[in-house]
């Protein structure tokens, strides 16, 4: 797993976000995708093949970082900066839209 270059012993993180319900440290200016890379088992499953996927391109092209952010599914995590208290959940299948 990755580790943030901003992480310093004894220095608190800029904020905490919730990843699959777990309080997770995050820093100003980083994206949802970069947080997901640090959290074990936070990948999504491809709705086509069912295989495990992790954020890849970090620039909005590959769609491998899709996550549910503050309740909105299929959000491209690499295009969304973190906010304090943000709720991030792994997306395990295709998005469902309400009837």
């Amino acid at each position, binding site marked *: 797993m990755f580790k943030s270059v901003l992480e310093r012993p004894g220095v608190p993180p800029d904020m905490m976000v919730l990843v699959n319900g777990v309080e997770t440290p995050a820093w100003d200016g980083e994206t949802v995708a970069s947080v997901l890379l640090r959290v074990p088992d936070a990948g999504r499953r491809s*709705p*086509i093949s069912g295989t495990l996927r992790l954020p890849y391109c970090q620039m909005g092209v590959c769609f491998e970082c899709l996550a549910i952010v503050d309740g909105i599914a299929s959000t491209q995590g690499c295009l969304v900066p973190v906010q304090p208290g943000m709720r991030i959940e792994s997306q395990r299948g*295709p*998005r469902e*839209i309400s*009837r």
Partner: protein
Amino acid sequence: MNADIIVVGGGVVGTALAYGFARQGLSVLVLDGEDGDMRAARANFGLVWVQGKGAKAPAYHDLTRQSANLWPTFLQELEGCVETRIDYARPGGLFYCLSDHEYEARDALNKRMHNQAEYADTRMVDRRELERMMPAVTFGSEVVGASYCLADGHANPLQLLAALQQAITALGSKLLFRSTVGSIRPEKTGFTVHATSGSFRAPKVVVAAGLATPLLTEPLGFTIPLRSERGQLLVTERLAPILPYPASGLRQTADGTVMIGATKEEATDRGVTVASATKLALRATRIIPALSAARLVRQWSGFRVMPPDGSPIYAQSERYPGLFAAACHSGVTLAAAHAAIVAPAMIAGRLSRDLAAFSNGRFDVQKCA
């Protein structure tokens, strides 16, 4: 000679014909254009569609229907040839009607077409029946009903094109990419085809180069009139299955994306416009309001290959026998017919007999008068 027959154009029309020739045991050379060339084969919507097609052209309707019926076998043979999968389903297709007027007009069209020939597979379904057929969605208040045709289906056109291209090679024929053809020269026997990758000779040449077809045939006095029509399409993110039936302008692919199409425009550039995106999204959300929550991931333009009367053109040059042209809208729907009916007719010299209604001579007013 480099091959028994050269096909100019590696799109879905050219490759389906080439596949048909190769299956008859001919050695085929397909010359395809540049990667960035305009391609209806890559831009299209992916319907294998019967209802409403050829409303004023019974021969076109019959060929469409034959092709749609041949599709399952065509697909099975193709998949066997290349061991690849092509998403295809034929649950029947819908044409949504958003007012009583649209519903009545569609009903009248179906009745008119039923009178031309005895097909009992298209009927109107009212809103209540639609709701039973599609329990995962709530329809917009304007949806009155739909026309439902059992013969309709849909396929993944990109997988289809890839499979046809692979199949040609698997059958021992050849496909050359980035080989734009500049001219075709008739020789004492056969033709020389001059391409960017070299010159090639064959006794027969088929031009299936989409909208570029007239550029190659016209200098030889072989007139194939075509009109370009731009269509814009939208596609959403992948969604859990909600649309079990493909519809004209609205279908959910096997991968879960929802395709929304397509406009009809006179424009000649390959750009996209906000006005068209709005128009397409508006109609889709009038049918299924919940789609407004879906994200769009792409918008693109494609160019329809339109003969003046909408029916396909399959023709042989009178001046240079052995020189053929094939051009049509609906290359996906007609792919099975191109492989199983049109290609064999071209080889056997039966084009003018079996497919007379599709000759280019029909546009020659003097000859018809």
